């Protein structure tokens, strides 16, 4: 009974999704908006299932997810290191803080042609791009979180004779972890957006290409199927990151 009630309240919280889908279907069938712009749901679903079974969509999902993940990992590791460097090493902060804080709002996407010259048009340039875009929010988040760490805790650690490494591992990183994880959660969708955008501009693999290609060949049912896939990938990646964050920082709560 309780399980049923919980299921009901869970279903009720999501009621707007089927409602909007119903509205979509009604508009699509009424012909008010051309079937190109808004294909009937059945067609979208059929295209989705069709391409999942043919292995076409899973392939592009894997390509995009792999690129996003690789870029995200590289960018976050570098970002955390740089962020700690900025917060803990004064000369490093003096020299490089402007690079990261003034460079933060500069749209890195403009470097697209230079990256394609440097890394080619394929996977490496996408990964490099995602890494660069993930780097900045992680640096800023780590820097701010690490700065907010109480001086007293650091002093206490130093008084107890901690070496730099121990201090970093047992004091600085745990104290800054929630802030860092927050930064990671901001960085992940940015990385994915950049990968998809660069795939749309010039590539023959990945979900960005799948969408651009579906649009260019007027297969709008496939276009929506691609969007559905992107939404699912984004949702799964975000949930996974939240899950890992909870495991990592459960001592902090």
């Amino acid at each position, binding site marked *: 009974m309780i399980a049923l009630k919980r299921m009901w309240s869970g279903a009720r919280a999501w009621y707007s999704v089927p409602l909007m889908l119903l509205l979509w279907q009604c508009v699509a069938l009424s012909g008010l908006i051309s079937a190109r712009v808004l294909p009937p749901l059945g067609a979208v679903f059929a295209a989705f299932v069709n391409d999942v079974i043919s292995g076409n969509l899973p392939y592009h999902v894997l390509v995009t997810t792999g690129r996003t993940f690789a870029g995200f990992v590289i960018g976050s590791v570098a970002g955390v290191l740089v962020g700690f460097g900025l917060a803990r*090493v004064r000369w490093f902060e*003096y020299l490089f803080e402007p690079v990261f804080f003034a460079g933060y709002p*500069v749209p890195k996407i403009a470097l*697209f042609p230079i990256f394609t010259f440097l890394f080619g048009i394929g996977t490496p340039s996408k990964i490099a791009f995602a890494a660069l875009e993930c780097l900045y929010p992680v640096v800023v988040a780590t820097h701010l979180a690490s700065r907010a760490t109480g001086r007293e805790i650091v002093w206490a650690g130093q008084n107890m004779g901690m070496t730099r490494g121990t201090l970093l591992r047992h004091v600085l990183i745990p104290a800054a972890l929630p802030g860092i994880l927050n930064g990671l959660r901001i960085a992940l969708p940015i990385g994915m957006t950049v990968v998809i955008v660069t795939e749309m501009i010039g590539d023959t693999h990945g979900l960005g290409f799948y969408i651009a290609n*579906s649009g260019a060949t007027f297969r709008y049912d496939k276009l929506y199927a691609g969007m559905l896939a992107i939404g699912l990938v984004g949702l799964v990646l975000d949930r996974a990151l939240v899950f890992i964050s909870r495991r990592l920082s459960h001592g902090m709560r």
Partner: protein
Amino acid sequence: MSAVLDVPSPPRRGRWRRLPYMAGRAAVPLVVLALWQWFGASGKLPPYLSFPSDIVSATRELAGEGELWTYLRDSLLRLIGGFAIGSAIGAALGLVAGLSKPVGEFADPLVAFVYPVPKIAFLPIMLLIFGLTSATQTAIVALSVSFPVFLAAQHAVQQMDKHLVWVARNFETPFPTLLFRVVLPATLPGIFAGLRVALALSFVSLFAAELIGAKTGLSLLITEGQDWVRYDIMLTGVVAYGLLGFVADRLLMAVRKRVLRGVLLGTGEAQR
């Protein structure tokens, strides 16, 4: 932690005394620029990295022909239009969704599902609706902007001090007054945080939207330079686009400081 170098701290007073400090801060970009120029002028860099003085002369050339200004104007109009429309819609809906529980419950699952999809994915549909006009890019920018602003506004309403609303309600404040005199001022700091994220996003989506479906714009300057093997023109586009993003962010921050001057009083940020 011991400082490896003795780092000067910023002098408190005097514009001229701050000069050496500021020069030191700008050292890394300046050194990179100088090296870039040096290696470029001596021909040791790959051709696609035209050096700074080349870029400056290309900028002059393009500005003289007026092409730079047309492209800049078109990009700017799309950006401003899209940003204004998207942030107005996002903030309005976000405030309502934060204030009214049924609206919030209706919107939450929809937003949760559409939010992770990069809005640039709607480009083929916008192209179908608006064709190869600026409206396509404007719509894409507006779409990308509206979601983070919506979430920021909704979150800000949920986080704000409920007593303010209760007090206003007790005084029988009409709803528009409540919205504009109580809720909006209380949530503006949060909304501005969303606007800043949205601004960065809008540049990414504008870039792709221009490349795929426009005839003018700064992003096209970049690809056209690439196609004509005029790398100085390409890099002019890169620099201009980067500068535009930087200046836009600074402008937004200046507006924020002005608008929020009452809220920021005493937070330490006001003195800076």
